[in-house]
């Protein structure tokens, strides 16, 4: 009986709270990328008080922001794929189980 209740509660969680948690985790990763690659203009001014250094700083900032943008795009793609897998996961597991049983009984 408890197993049945657990199964129902799990299914309800899989398509409700789990999706919310998934989006929270995605937000955490995007926050991490933002913190790693963002370089505010104020810090460039502080680190490089003279113009030659500031130009170098601007180039570095541009490269850092571009890398951050690229990684953000890759992260979005991966997160979309993972979201699709999560939504289809029960079907995927059923399919895998069928494939396993078929492997045993079909030579």
């Amino acid at each position, binding site marked *: 009986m408890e197993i049945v209740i*657990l199964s129902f509660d799990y299914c309800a969680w899989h398509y409700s709270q789990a999706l919310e948690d998934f989006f929270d985790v995605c937000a955490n990763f995007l926050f991490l990328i933002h913190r790693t690659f963002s370089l505010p203009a104020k810090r460039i001014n502080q680190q490089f008080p003279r113009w030659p250094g500031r130009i170098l700083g601007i180039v570095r900032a541009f490269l850092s922001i571009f890398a951050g943008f690229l990684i953000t795009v890759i992260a979005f793609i991966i997160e979309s794929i993972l979201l699709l897998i999560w939504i289809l996961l029960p079907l995927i597991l059923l399919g895998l189980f069928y494939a396993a049983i078929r492997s045993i009984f079909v030579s």
Partner: protein
Amino acid sequence: MTFSSLQKSAQKYRSVFFAEEFIPRKRRKTAEAFFALAIFVLSILFLSGIFGAEENYLIAAFILIAIMLIKLRMLEAFCSSNERIMRESADFNTLSIVRRSDPSDLLRSLILSDIGEISLLRAGASKESLETYLASDRVKVSAAQFDESSRPFSGILTLAEYVRLTISLDPAFVALLAADQVSLKDVEGAERWISESDTREKSRSSWWSGENLAADFDHLSLKCNIQEPVDPAAVLPALLLRVPALEERDKVFFTFPALLSLADRTSCCIIGTAAPQRAFEILYLLPSYAKSLGDTVIRPSHVKHFFGKE
């Protein structure tokens, strides 16, 4: 905070408790490690050509092990997610004891529970004393007595508080513990240690959480339990504080003024609101950010401004 309200909360999360009893967390982790190793070994065998695609049984075994591994991870995610939600309104360890408790004899249920027994033994009580107590002609601590004594408490009842309330309702048991040179504070400390070790371990394994991903950057979030009921206008009498970034790695007790002077010494700012729920968040900030905000105690609105969320 009545006993029946705790039981209702426990009932709401019965699936989580059942999952924990069905396959305990440690056993899940061991099984996951075993299945992951099996998949790794089978993959190596397939890739190296020792076994080919005609080995149907091995392919079936590979797929079934992968399914088991995925299901175990899904169960772990289910339990972690629900425990995290539960923590906002109730203490997992408290509810796991309450769930199996007999309302007419709370102390016996506490002593016979896993967590209760471990913490009492850890605090210094002997197994013989506990067995003697249970076998003796004793006064039973009922849910009604518990409700009466827990009336001043609102918000989340931690495990340490639940144990202290329950034990203190039977002076004979307190005397028995005293004979083993165990005080209520020792028991509370043991309970707190168990809860915090548990929380710390779970938090560490959730490496994708905001707490962990942001921990190396601007703040470390520390949850502190206040020992005494808090008057927001008054200075807090004592704090239990963990400060892993500093030299003091073990648990230490500070008074609030000492905590502020510690903050001055390390040039950090502390955010806290003396909360009616008897717990508040201390955010340990980097000196660079602290300087931009000044050296006074910061309001939660500053947190929202900086982190983009409460």
